[in-house]
């Protein structure tokens, strides 16, 4: 599964551009604000339906234009397939395979993608909401059933909250049963994913830090004590909290309140870590996510790394270079070619300037 070509029209600062990619490591060089990040963002919009976190989805379409178009040619099992996204100003994004409109999740499961953005440190240090979004977004893309279970859980939660607000105690039980069934499934999926991610994050962060630091990932829940029968645990917890929750008018326990905890060398990362450590933690998390996607879909995802080398020291850069070499296809950006470690074999090199590819070369 290889991305061969990306076509952009009226996307951010790009008027019109065609970019070719090869298997292995593709390196995108360019100074700041020339369109490196937007190139990765185009792929993220096309394959994940979302751009750089917090970077204003409204300005995705080039200033003064009504519509942007993104197209990717990918090759799978000897066959070329064209994926397309149409962005209309002020409206949503339409996704297509060849000419047929498709659900976003289908595109992801056909051609998976994992992106690391410099702002991903926010996943580790931001509000719990941010970490739940990370987890739910990842699992919903991997399985439509997860998304359906999550929606069903949220619906039951809203109904139970309405009962709590209006003080209808006699109706709580039936909504708790719905919440327990679907929330239990959501939690079970999260526990299973966490089991995988925890090992991977520990392994990758350990290697990134030359074995000097440890990063442990944990699922934090105020209602479950482990992955055994989450439905039964949730049913019990909801019943137990009824009286208190009737006072608050909302449900205080359940998967919608759960969080991920990151322990750096045994301490909560949010209070201890430097910016560099947080960024490395986020990088480890994204690479672990890529490994999870590969294991679940039986296919290595395309990996995009935006400015990943910037804050790493020399040994970490070299370790990352070795890790990326083992992936099927990677696109990474760097403002400065001198940051790219000498042991990284680059299969294609692009220079970007003012929304145009000004130079391309193999290796």
């Amino acid at each position: 599964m290889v991305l061969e070509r990306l076509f952009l029209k009226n996307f951010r600062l790009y008027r019109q551009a065609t970019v070719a990619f090869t298997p292995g490591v593709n390196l995108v060089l360019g100074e700041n604000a020339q369109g490196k990040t937007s190139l990765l963002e185009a792929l993220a919009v096309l394959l994940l339906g979302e751009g750089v976190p917090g970077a204003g989805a409204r300005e995705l379409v080039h200033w003064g234009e009504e519509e942007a178009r993104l197209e990717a040619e990918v090759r799978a099992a000897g066959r070329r397939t064209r994926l397309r996204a149409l962005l209309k100003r002020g409206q949503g994004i339409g996704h297509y395979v060849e000419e047929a409109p498709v659900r976003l999740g289908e595109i992801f499961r056909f051609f998976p993608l994992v992106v690391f953005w410099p702002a991903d440190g926010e996943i580790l240090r931001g509000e719990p909401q941010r970490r739940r979004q990370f987890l739910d977004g990842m699992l919903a893309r991997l399985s439509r059933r997860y998304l359906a279970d999550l929606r069903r859980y949220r619906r039951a939660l809203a109904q139970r909250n309405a009962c709590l607000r209006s003080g209808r105690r006699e109706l709580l039980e039936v909504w708790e049963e719905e919440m327990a069934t679907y929330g239990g499934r959501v939690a079970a999926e999260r526990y299973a994913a966490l089991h995988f991610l925890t090992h991977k994050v520990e392994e990758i962060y350990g290697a990134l830090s030359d074995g000097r630091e440890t990063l442990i990932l944990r699922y934090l829940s105020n209602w479950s004590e482990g992955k055994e029968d989450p439905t039964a645990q949730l049913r019990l917890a909801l019943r137990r909290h009824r009286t208190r929750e009737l006072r608050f008018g909302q449900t205080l326990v359940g998967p919608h309140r759960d969080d991920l905890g990151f322990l750096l060398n045994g301490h909560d990362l949010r209070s201890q870590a430097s910016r560099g450590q947080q960024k490395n933690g986020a990088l480890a998390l994204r690479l672990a996510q890529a490994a999870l996607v590969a294991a679940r879909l039986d296919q290595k995802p395309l990996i995009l790394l935006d400015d990943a080398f910037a804050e790493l020291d020399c040994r970490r850069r070299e370790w990352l270079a070795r890790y990326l070499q083992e992936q099927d296809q990677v696109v990474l950006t760097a403002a400065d070619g001198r940051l790219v470690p000498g042991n990284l074999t680059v299969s294609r090199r692009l220079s970007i300037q003012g929304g145009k590819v000004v130079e391309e070369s193999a290796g």
Partner: protein
Amino acid sequence: MWYYAEPLARLIEALHKLPGIGPKTAQRLAFFLMSCPREEALGLATAIVQAREKIHPCTLCANLTDADPCQICRDPRRDRTVICVVEQPRDLVAIERTGVYRGLYHVLHGALSPLDGVGPQDLKIDQLLSRLRDGTVKEIILATNPNAEGEATALYLARLCRPLGLRVTRPAHGLPVGGDLEYADEMTLGRALSGRQEMV
């Protein structure tokens, strides 16, 4: 809407309030009613008035009927030991079309939804319970929708009915008959697979 004569504007507005009718369709229907034979248009108006006047919920099953009790409740050939509970009259019609079911019905006219302020007293639940009291009914089939509100309603009713010593059942979920596997949506297929049965 200054470009429509006032009675026409009122008609368009009234049609626009119907489910599934947008402003353009409302306009098309209104102009059609103005141009079709007079009897046809008046016939439609009379049909609406008569249906509204004559149709009311059956005092037993709450299905919409012009007689009381309704045709199904009066039919001596129907099995009086089974009641199938549905959310809407249209669900009853769907089950009748199968021609498989020969028992009685009960129409709730909705499902539990605290978000929309719908509680048990807004559904025909008391009426249902009073039908169960004389001991004729042995089984109750909870055929509410398989969405969150329908499941919760089914569960609520199950809790009420079980202490009465009734058999409480729910229709199985599965693949549409006559459909090809490849066209079934993933969720239906997933549910059908997890509820698979032994071959006999």
